[in-house]
C-alpha cells in the first residue's frame, strides 16, 4: 500500500492515554512500530513520517503519534522534561491499545522520548531506532546552541514563512523540495495553538542525565544521523553508540536533520532489515 492511498484523515485516530487525549495516525497490522516526530514548531507524526508510513505499514502496525503539545494531541504543561512526559504518554497509549511491547522509532526530540522510554519502561520496549538524536552528554566538538537550534527556537516566537524557509534550508541538505505551499502548511500547524509554542519554548531543552542509565540499556538499537545535520550534531549519535552496547551506527552522507525524509528509501530498507533481523 503506497503512501498515495494513505491519507492523514484516512489514518487519523484518537485514544486516551491516562489524562491525555492522544492523536495518532495508524496503518498496517502486525508488530507495533511507534514513530515519534521531532520538536520543531508545527511538527506532527504525519508530517514527519509521510515518506515512511506507506512502506512500513506493508509489514508492521505503524503508529505515528503526536507528542504532547504537538499536532492534535492535548496541550500538557511541562513540569518534567518533555521526553519523560511523552514517554509516559506512549506507555499509557500502549496500555490503552493493548500493546505489551513495541519498537520505538524516534526523530530528534522523538529520540529523546525513546531514550526516556527505554530507561523508564524497559520491559515495554522491543528495540529502538534513533535519528538525529541529541547526545545525552556534552558535545565535545560542536558548540551549543547549534546554528539550527537557534533558528528552531526562533520559530516558537516567529512562525512566519520566511522563518520556516530559513529553518528548512538549514535542516535539510537539499531543501529544494520545500515549496511555499508546504511551508505554509507548517506555518498553519505552528500557529494553530499559540499556547503550545509558549509551553514548548519553556520546556523543550530541560532534561535529566540519562548517561548512567543508558550505560545499562541492553535493547538492540539502530542509531542514525545525517552527516550534514546542523541542528543536532552527529557526535550526539557517537555518544549514544558508545553508551548503548547493542547498537549499530549508521551515518548518511548528503543528509541533514531529517534522515527518514531525505534518505527515505535507504531509511525504510534499513528499518525493515533491523526489525526483521534483530
Amino acid at each position, binding site marked *: 500500500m503506497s503512501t498515495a492511498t494513505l491519507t492523514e484523515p484516512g489514518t487519523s485516530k484518537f485514544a486516551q492515554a491516562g489524562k491525555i487525549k492522544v492523536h495518532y495516525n495508524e496503518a498496517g497490522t502486525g508488530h507495533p512500530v511507534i514513530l515519534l516526530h521531532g520538536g520543531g514548531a508545527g511538527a506532527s507524526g504525519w508530517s514527519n513520517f509521510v515518506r515512511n508510513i506507506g512502506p512500513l505499514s506493508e509489514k508492521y502496525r505503524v503508529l505515528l503519534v503526536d507528542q504532547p503539545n504537538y499536532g492534535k494531541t492535548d496541550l500538557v504543561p511541562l513540569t518534567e522534561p518533555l521526553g519523560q512526559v511523552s514517554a509516559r504518554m506512549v506507555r499509557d497509549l500502549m496500555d490503552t491499545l493493548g500493546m505489551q511491547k513495541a519498537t520505538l522509532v524516534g526523530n530528534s526530540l522523538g529520540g529523546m522520548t525513546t531514550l526516556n522510554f527505554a530507561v523508564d519502561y524497559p520491559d515495554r520496549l522491543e528495540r529502538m531506532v534513533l535519528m538525529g538524536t541529541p547526545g545525552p552528554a556534552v558535545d*565535545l*566538538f*560542536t*558548540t551549543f546552541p547549534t*546554528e539550527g537550534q537557534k533558528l528552531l527556537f526562533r520559530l516558537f516566537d516567529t512562525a512566519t514563512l520566511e522563518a520556516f524557509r530559513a529553518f528548512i534550508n538549514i535542516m535539510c541538505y537539499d531543501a529544494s523540495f520545500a515549496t511555499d505551499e508546504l511551508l505554509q502548511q507548517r506555518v498553519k500547524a505552528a500557529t494553530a495553538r499559540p499556547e503550545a509554542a509558549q509551553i514548548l519554548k519553556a520546556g523543550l531543552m530541560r532534561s535529566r542525565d540519562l548517561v548512567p542509565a543508558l550505560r545499562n540499556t541492553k535493547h538492540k538499537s539502530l542509531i542514525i544521523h545525517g*552527516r*550534514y*545535520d*546542523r541542528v543536532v*550534531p*552527529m*557526535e550526539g549519535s557517537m555518544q549514544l553508540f558508545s553508551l548503548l552496547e547493542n547498537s549499530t551506527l549508521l551515518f548518511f552522507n548528503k543528509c541533514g536533520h531529517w534522515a527518514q525524509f531525505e534518505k527515505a528509501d535507504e531509511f525504510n530498507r534499513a528499518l525493515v532489515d533491523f526489525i526483521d533481523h534483530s
Partner: protein
Amino acid sequence: MATTALTEQSTSKFVQAGDIKLHYNEAGSGDAVIMLHGGGPGASGWSNFSTNIGPFAEHYRTMLFDMPQFGKSDPVVINEERAHYNAKAIKKGLDQLGIKKVSFIGNSFGGATSLAFVLLYPEAVHKLVLMGAAGYGQSIFGPTPLEGIKALNAWWHVRTKEAMKEIVDIFVYDQKFKTDELVGRRFNAAMSKPEHIEARNKSTGGLMDYTPELHKIKAPTLVIWGRDDRFSPLDWALRLTWHLPNAQLHVFPQCGHWVQYEKSDQFNRLVLDFLQNG
C-alpha cells in the same frame, strides 16, 4: 609600556613589499614577532591585536601587518592560493626591513598565512602560534563551512551593518563583547575602502588544505583555540596537534573565534611564556 601609550597612529608604518605597499603597526625592540589578523571584513592588524601589542612590545619588536586587501595595505587582486600570496608579500617586506628571522602569531586566516610562510621559508621562522587557524579541509564532527564562515562569506556581497552585527554575534562568545561600538567600528573599517572589497570580489585565489604539508614544519608551535569557536571547528585544533611534529594545544572555554581579545590577559601570559621558554 602600557597599551594606552601606544596608538594606531603612533605605531603606523609602511614598507614596500615588491610591487605592493604593506601597512603595519610596530612597537618594541628585539626579536621580531609578527601578528597576522584574520580574513573577516574590517579586519586589520591593529583592530585584531590592540590588546596584545602593548605587553608584547615590552619584550619583542612587535609588528602587526595588514594583509593585502585589508587595513591600509594595498588592494590587490589575488589569483593564486591566498595564504601563499600573503606569505610571499610579507617575506618581501621583511627582506626590505632587513629582518631575517621571526615568530608568527596568526589568527584564523593569519594562521594559514603563517603556515604557508614557514613552508616556504623554514629558516626564517623561530616559533609559531596559531589561533583558530584556517586551512585543514573537512571537519570530522560536523558540516563545514561553519555558520561564522557562511556569515562572513555572505557579508562581502550584502555589506550591511545588520549583517556585520550577525557576524559579531557569532564571532565572540561572551555577550559583553558584542557591543554596538565593535559592530560600528568593524563596519566602518570594512566600508572605508571600497577598493579592498572590489579587489576581494574579483580575486579567484582560494585557501588550500595544508594538512599534507604539516609534517614538514619543525618550528615549535603553540595551537590555541576557543572551545566555542563557530568559524574554525575544534577538531582542526586536534588535527594540527597530531600532524605538526612539535606542537602543543591550549583550549580556552567560554571563548569564540577571537582568542587573543576574548582572553587577552591569559593569552598574553601564555604566549609570552611559550615564546620565551617553550
